[in-house]
């Protein structure tokens, strides 16, 4: 059970949050100009790696804000949390 440092509220229990999958996948600005394959790439393909992963999280039972998290899936260490729109930290 993680202790997550919401960038807006501070440290809260994991039960207040929900995970929204891989981060930094930007919705294409011109979907109509994409081929089926390109659209499918955006729509379906998500990484699930063992190691450092960038994830979207939502403080669902708190401030309702979405933010990003850098987490090592092999040991659940949270390396960073940062607001939407902010640049991911460089390792």
């Amino acid at each position: 059970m993680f202790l997550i440092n919401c960038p807006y509220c501070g440290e809260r229990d994991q039960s207040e949050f929900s995970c929204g999958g891989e981060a930094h996948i930007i919705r294409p600005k011109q979907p109509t100009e994409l081929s089926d394959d390109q659209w499918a790439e955006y729509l379906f393909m998500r990484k699930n790696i063992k190691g450092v992963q960038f994830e979207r999280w939502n403080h669902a039972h708190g401030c309702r804000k979405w933010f990003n998290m850098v987490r090592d899936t092999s040991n659940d260490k949270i390396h960073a949390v940062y607001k939407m729109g902010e640049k991911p930290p460089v390792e």
Partner: protein
Amino acid sequence: MTKYRVNKTKYIDQTKTVSFNFDGKSYHGFEGDTLASALLSNGVHLVGRSFKYHRPRGIMSCGSEEPNAICQIHEDTDLTEPNVRATEIELYEGLKASSQNCWPSVNFDIGGINNFISQFIPAGFYYKTFMWPKSFWKKIYEPLIRMSAGLGKSPTKPDPELYDHKHVHCDVLIIGGGISGIIASKIAAKNNLKTILIEDKNILGGSTIYQKNENYKINNNYSSEWLDQEIAELKKLDNLTIKTRTSLAAYHSYNYLLAKENISDHLPLDKRNVGIRQRLWKIRADKVIVAAGAIERPLVFNNNDRPGIMLSNSVKKYLDFYGVSCGFNNVIFTNNDSAYETAVSLKEKGISVEMIDIRKKSNSKIVKNAEQLGVKINWNSTVVNTFGLRKINSVEIMNLSEDGSNVVGDKNKINCDCLAISGGWTPMVHMHTQSGGKLDFREIDQTFIPNEIDKNHINIGSCNGDFEIEEIINNTNKKVKNFLKVSETEFDNISVLNSKELDKRNIWLLPNFISEGKCKSFIDFQNDSTANDIKLALREGFKSIEHVKRYTTTGMATDQGKLSNMHALGIIADTAGVKIGTLGTTTFRPPFTPLTFGSIVGRSVGNFFDITRKTSIHEWHIQNRAKFENVGQWKRPWYYPINDEGLHNAVQRESKAARDSAGILDASTLGKIDIQGTDASEFLNRVYTNAWSKLGIGKCRYGLMLNEDGMVYDDGVTTRLGENHYLMTTTTGGAANVLSKLEDYLQTEWPELDVYLTSVTDHYSTASICGPNSKKILKKIFPDKDFSDDAFPHMSYQNDKIDEINCRIMRISFTGELSYEINIESKYGKSLWEKCIEAGKEFKITPYGTETMHLLRAEKGFIIVGQDTDGTMTPIDLQMDWIVSKKKYDFIGKRSLYRSDTIREDRKQLVGLLTDDPNEILEEGAQIVSDMSKKPIEMIGHVTSSYFSPNLNKSIALAVVKSGKKMYGQKLIVPMENKNINVTVSDSVFSR
């Protein structure tokens, strides 16, 4: 006092007799006993039958590692509980316990026949035997397995007890109240840290608290006396919470731990009305110190499972703590020094004891002590067999060969009534590994010890591999100081006297003159797996420890292999010729000891299981005998039966009234989202499939929302309240998800939009009045308002007041009938409703529920998202092309509507179905086929909604059918269990 109670100790109050019942027989014990110690004090060793072979088994240990003494308590009552360890049950007046897994009795057991055919049930027996023929599975194999697989009985009635959850935060959590845990707690609490100490036993002190041996002294006192004083001082500290009878269940990441506190399990049943039975502590600790101790290992030799064969340190605890001698003629079989402490304790009390030691010699102080007391030691020897049907009566021993791989010389028989065994110690690394910690293998004593890299917890004492009191005290002091950043403690200069173990020898599977296949050398006592099973699995090609474990079921019982895992690993390593360290260990999963379901769910039972949401009109529905339907968490009126009317008749009456005169529906549960901001129109353009920019203020519009994959997600009517202000409605069940989806897009994809969303579902109550007379009823409520079509057209809204209270009137319809919805602040919902009923009286206004609403909309072919759709339907599949804007450049899901898969013409499409017999009503969910002759029969769709329409006087159904759009007029078949129903495909709009 029974003859086995040989010793008076301060932990047993011999003035307070406690009577209890085991397997139908009455016994007496004393206050302070466990069920196990009380049974042993009565000379009872045989307490159960083994799981697979039904061999007689006795009490083996004194703690949570107990594999044999597993009981059902208070059988045939509401309070019954299976799989409770007799070693952990504190004795109380009236306790009723029985052996598990033996029928008709422990002494005569029919399943014992398995013991004689045991050669035919080796590892993987169930996998191999019950594979085929397939037809045997249901009628023969499964009942057979179920009958013989008995790990207790579940209670048949709800649990009458109360359970609780408690959330706590602390600076330091210490797990285990033995000597190292007590030292750590004292250091932490004395240094201003908010500390919690949990201990699963009812008293602190671990095994040191009853250690009175000249060889183990602290500051010139017996270690037990020294510790007693420490505990007395500890209890005076302010910022320390001590929780006894509290066992750690799970150690999750980020120092989040669960511990179960037993509050009333040790009390007689009539004294348990104190409230809560067990409390689950949810602890978030800044730092965790694990002082969980170690478990003594058994030894693996032929017939090592008879009643009377016990772990050596348990024999010592029963004697020194409970005052019970497990036998009068003891033999101790060991590979290490700790068993000599047991020997000395026995001998000092004048009880006969003889040692068998696989080591060649040892000159440590404790061994010398035993020799001086006259204990006979058989060096370099091993037990090759044991005898005695219901209790051990003798052992046969032989000498070991030089390398220990074989036995040599003659057999020598020794009579005994108790065989204490000790194969060394296994640190309890469960907590450490649960938290994600790794282990290192220590060759010298063949133990896995914690490898600490995590900065937030440490392991101290014997769970850290420190077994001797001197290293326990010194290492604990040093590690805790470092961990808590304390510079000096009272334990810095302490004088400790202790016997050091000088010689070690370990043989995982002891050799025998009997051929391996004929030996019954048990590794996992609870699941009855033997050394042979492990070897067989290896011969059959299993290599990974995880596979061997599952194939042989070793370590898979309720004790999670606390006694068996190391031997399984050792034998695999020896057989495969590799080092244990390279095999890795199996994963220890929470809970450490089984948890009751009650403690897991806590107060979330009955009415507290889930939230119940009621509209403000709920009381009226109850008074009018509505039957309710659960829609998400909402209670919605399903139908309102008159007298003993059933669902069908009520719905026929309600829907007829709604079409012929007037009906009224509580629509308050629909999700409502208030949308404001200068970009609100643009936002709606992006989330709905249709266009919103040109919707006039005061107008309403139906919208369909897709997922990015093009599938219908939600629908509802949205009203433009102002230039930059909309009120969106969603389906009842989808409200929360829609809001969070919209928030997601706003915050992450379109942060540039000036839009604010607020859930207002609970803020307003809604009465929906429909039917040809609805306008007249509205006119009575709002006499000054012009309800003509010109002044108040369809799909528009107007503000008004009822008795000075603001309300909104919307002319929208989900039934296809003329209808109005009145929204008012929730607290006025019931009076609004009653006003409508009063006004509608002369038109026989009829309240209707969700079932009638579904029927009315089905007549018009309106979909219900979630009933006619299932996340695989596009608007095109639903034949709702009209609502998908061709002009808009983009909206959520647009691109997916022309993916190669979504433009397939043979997708399932929404159509109507009319039964050839108009009185035949199809079953929702029924499959649809076109060709019954070709096997296997292809199922081309299913019925999604089905009703008898009183207004059309025939049965109607909505269905999704492959290529359904092209099948109008075509005959299809709905095969049911007893008959095939002939249907014709039709338009999904049954009435225009």
